[in-house]
């Protein structure tokens, strides 16, 4: 009876790792390379990119530097890339692109997860692009926050004169910690002489937003034509395709899993199970219990 208990316990312990791996929420994309390098050299990007391969498509690879592709994306598809990795001086980004069987991203039930070099992508213009473009015109902000704290709805903008607002900030609606964290760390004066402030701190709408200090409540600030590039080059040719027309080409019939074999994690689990069972059998065969059951 006790022997059966121990056998059952060992089997449970062998199964437990697999259960743990799949029964709990996975907080990051399920990619072996990402997980294996998570603690060491994965960097956060958090920017939106558009595919822009020289041949009209971008091959998604199993891992940085690999020749094994797991899918092909046509140029013009936009997506967020949160994690990047420096592979021998070339930065690769982790693509986590949802799609359905027809390659339609609107009703996804599968996800293609792999790596592409950032050279084959264009970064979509964002607040970082703006800061890079106006590096010498942005200065530290030394004023107060009276405008933001006035009680009026302060309009939040993606960047000065972008024409795209990200909602409004109502000071009294902020949580106490949001008020405490709120900072305007730098400022910029546009061609019309309006001063803008870059906000730091996770406020309820978004972080990394600008407010127009000269006219904080206006939602109709004019857009400067020179400050809204469609995208910024990563030393790659400029795409002329409309991002919304991009379509995804599913991998060849041989599914990516079959093509690449089992994942490292699965192989490791199987290997450990075989090793443990092998050791148990060997002990059982080589030793006859000298003492009674435990």
């Amino acid at each position, binding site marked *: 009876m006790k022997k059966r208990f*121990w056998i059952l316990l*060992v089997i449970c*312990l*062998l199964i*437990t*790792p697999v259960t*743990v*791996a799949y029964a*709990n929420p*996975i*907080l990051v994309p399920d990619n*072996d*390379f990402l*997980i*294996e*390098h*998570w603690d060491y050299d994965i960097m956060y990007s958090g920017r939106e990119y558009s595919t822009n391969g020289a041949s009209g498509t971008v091959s998604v690879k199993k891992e940085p530097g690999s020749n094994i592709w797991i899918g092909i994306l046509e140029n013009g598809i936009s997506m967020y890339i949160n994690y990047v990795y420096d592979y021998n001086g070339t930065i690769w980004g982790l693509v986590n692109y949802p799609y359905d069987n027809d390659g339609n991203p609107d009703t996804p039930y599968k996800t293609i997860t792999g790596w592409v070099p950032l050279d084959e992508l264009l970064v979509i213009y964002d607040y970082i692009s703006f800061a890079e473009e106006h590096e010498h015109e942005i200065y530290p902000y030394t004023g107060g926050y009276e405008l933001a704290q006035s009680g009026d709805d302060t309009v939040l903008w993606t960047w000065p004169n972008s024409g795209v607002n990200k909602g409004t900030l109502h000071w009294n609606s902020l949580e106490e910690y949001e008020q405490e964290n709120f900072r305007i760390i730098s400022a910029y004066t546009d061609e019309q002489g309006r001063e803008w402030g870059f906000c730091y701190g996770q406020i309820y709408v978004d972080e990394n937003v600008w407010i127009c200090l000269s006219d904080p409540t206006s939602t109709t600030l004019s857009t400067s034509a020179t400050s809204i590039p469609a995208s910024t080059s990563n030393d790659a040719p400029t795409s002329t395709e409309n991002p919304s027309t991009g379509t995804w080409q599913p991998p060849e019939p041989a599914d990516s899993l079959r093509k690449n074999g089992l994942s*490292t*994690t699965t*192989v*490791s*689990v199987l*290997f*450990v199970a075989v*090793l*443990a069972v*092998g*050791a*148990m059998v*060997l*002990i059982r065969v*080589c*030793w006859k*219990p*000298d*003492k009674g*059951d*435990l």
Partner: protein
Amino acid sequence: MSGLPVSLALSLCLTLVLECGFFFLTGKRHKKDLLLVILVNVLTNPIVVLSYWLAAHYTLWNRNLIKVFLELFAVLTEACYYKKYGQEFRHPLWFSIAANAFSFGIGVVVQQFL
């Protein structure tokens, strides 16, 4: 070569060297007991390393608690095997606790240099 298989292989090799070393340090010389120590560690160490790796990467559980639980599993399993099959293990549980503490401690020190 990816991280997990390397971790598994390194941990197992290091554990075998250290636990066999500890076996000799305690004055034991019985060959069959030595083989038992090796097989028991082949049984427990990869399970412990793999379980820790999976738990650390896929869950938000406290890592120290995971270590304690897994080390406890290793100690108890090994003690049971030593008690059941060993020839010269007069205090199997204490031997198991001491051997695991020895290899865990040295492992922590070695990890600083890797």
